[in-house]
């Protein structure tokens, strides 16, 4: 699907990461592989530390914390919120929607439209699309887009394939109408035929969690996980990203008539450093324009990597400067998409700890 939105803008970004973190070195004992191999992997993949929620912390806890930070610091007023869109794969409950839980805990107006979207690594693109679409309604003030995931709680600590890159975080993005003639263009694709490449097999209605689904199994590479855990076919995911993203991006740039050197920042989802750097090489984009340091410093909190990338790598410069950026996400679904927009003169762009 190709898409375009006129007169919409991002006016603030807040990223929230848990205080608690673990280092790759201290977790190496958990993995069923010799240390020298695992250490080499650390360097290539860019693993170092990942921020993880404590037991019992939920997405709504972190979202409410972030929203209160905005209220308390005068960065957002409850009365200005028209809609609350939550993108998560780790909701508090099957039902009700976690967006409703957040609305209730914050005491927001009953006129605030609440929506949960089940999306992951491409969730920032999907969430922004939904937020931009909502702004087409009359009398809309601000749409609050919350990307949030705490998937570390569903990943086996003995899974060298997935646990080193696990990371928990949320990000709050404020989206508003603009009258500056701005144009945001992008493209997104889905391939549900490959949905098993990245999934949590048990726990839904298809395969309810039972004592049997909690039994740990070892795969041929020595990783131990149960059917209740996230399973990622790493090789297939890597190949999917390398084969699907470059043509989508090159096609997008050609269609909208923009040269790669006209884009100041390529702010992509970051499953690991190796994958992002390979994309930069394929697109012939300098590494410094496509940061790959989120997984190193925070882990991979699914779709939150993109706004976290904005907060961590551009930071306060976005309060007074404007940049042409390409945002991209790819992963569960399978889903892959990108958009090109200008972002800048934000009211805030903060990174805080929960």
């Amino acid at each position, binding site marked *: 699907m190709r898409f375009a939105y006129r007169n919409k803008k991002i006016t603030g970004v807040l990223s929230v990461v848990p205080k608690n973190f673990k280092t790759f070195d201290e977790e190496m004992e958990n993995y069923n592989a010799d240390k020298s*191999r695992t250490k*080499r*992997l650390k360097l*290539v993949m860019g693993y170092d530390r990942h921020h993880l929620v404590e037991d019992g912390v939920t997405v709504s806890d972190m979202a409410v914390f972030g929203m209160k930070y905005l209220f308390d610091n005068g960065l957002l007023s409850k009365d200005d919120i028209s809609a609350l869109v939550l993108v998560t794969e780790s909701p508090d409950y099957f039902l009700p929607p976690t967006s409703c839980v957040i609305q209730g805990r914050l005491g927001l107006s009953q006129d605030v439209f609440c929506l949960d979207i089940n999306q992951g690594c491409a969730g920032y693109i999907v969430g922004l699309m939904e937020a931009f679409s909502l702004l087409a309604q009359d009398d809309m003030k601000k749409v609050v887009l919350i990307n949030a995931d705490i998937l570390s709680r569903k990943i086996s600590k003995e899974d060298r394939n997935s646990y080193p890159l696990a990371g928990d975080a949320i990000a709050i993005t404020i989206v508003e109408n603009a009258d500056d003639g701005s144009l945001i263009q992008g493209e997104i694709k889905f391939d549900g035929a490959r949905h098993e490449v990245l999934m949590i097999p048990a726990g839904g209605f298809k395969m309810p969690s039972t004592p049997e689904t909690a039994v740990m199994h070892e795969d041929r*590479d020595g990783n131990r996980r149960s059917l209740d855990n996230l399973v990622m076919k790493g*090789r297939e995911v890597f*190949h999917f*990203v390398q084969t699907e993203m470059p043509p989508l991006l090159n096609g997008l740039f050609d269609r909208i008539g923009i040269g790669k050197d006209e884009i100041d920042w390529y702010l992509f989802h970051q499953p690991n450093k190796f994958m992002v750097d390979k994309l930069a*090489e*394929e697109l012939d984009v300098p590494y410094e324009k496509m940061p790959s340091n989120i997984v190193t410093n925070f882990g991979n909190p699914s779709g939150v990597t993109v706004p976290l990338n904005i907060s961590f790598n551009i930071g306060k410069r976005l309060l007074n400067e404007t940049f042409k950026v390409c945002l991209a996400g790819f992963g569960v679904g399978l889903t892959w998409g990108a958009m090109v927009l200008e972002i800048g003169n934000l009211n805030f762009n903060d990174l805080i700890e929960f």
Partner: protein
Amino acid sequence: MDKIIDILKGIRPEFDFTASDDFINDGFIDSFDIVTLVAALEKQFGIKIKGTEIVPENFCNLNAIAALLKKYGAAIA
């Protein structure tokens, strides 16, 4: 070819890589080892291997790795 064998031995010293035609199915290397191998080959030969070519078929035995490196003009002799 010796340079390739040295790199492979650096990753999995316990295996004789001249004795296998299928490193992956024989359990010599896994998908993460392939990533480590790519990084080591790129450093050794001063090349950048395309992401689309990082597939098991290109790393399953010495001849496959050599053929891939030749595509990039690497001096493997």
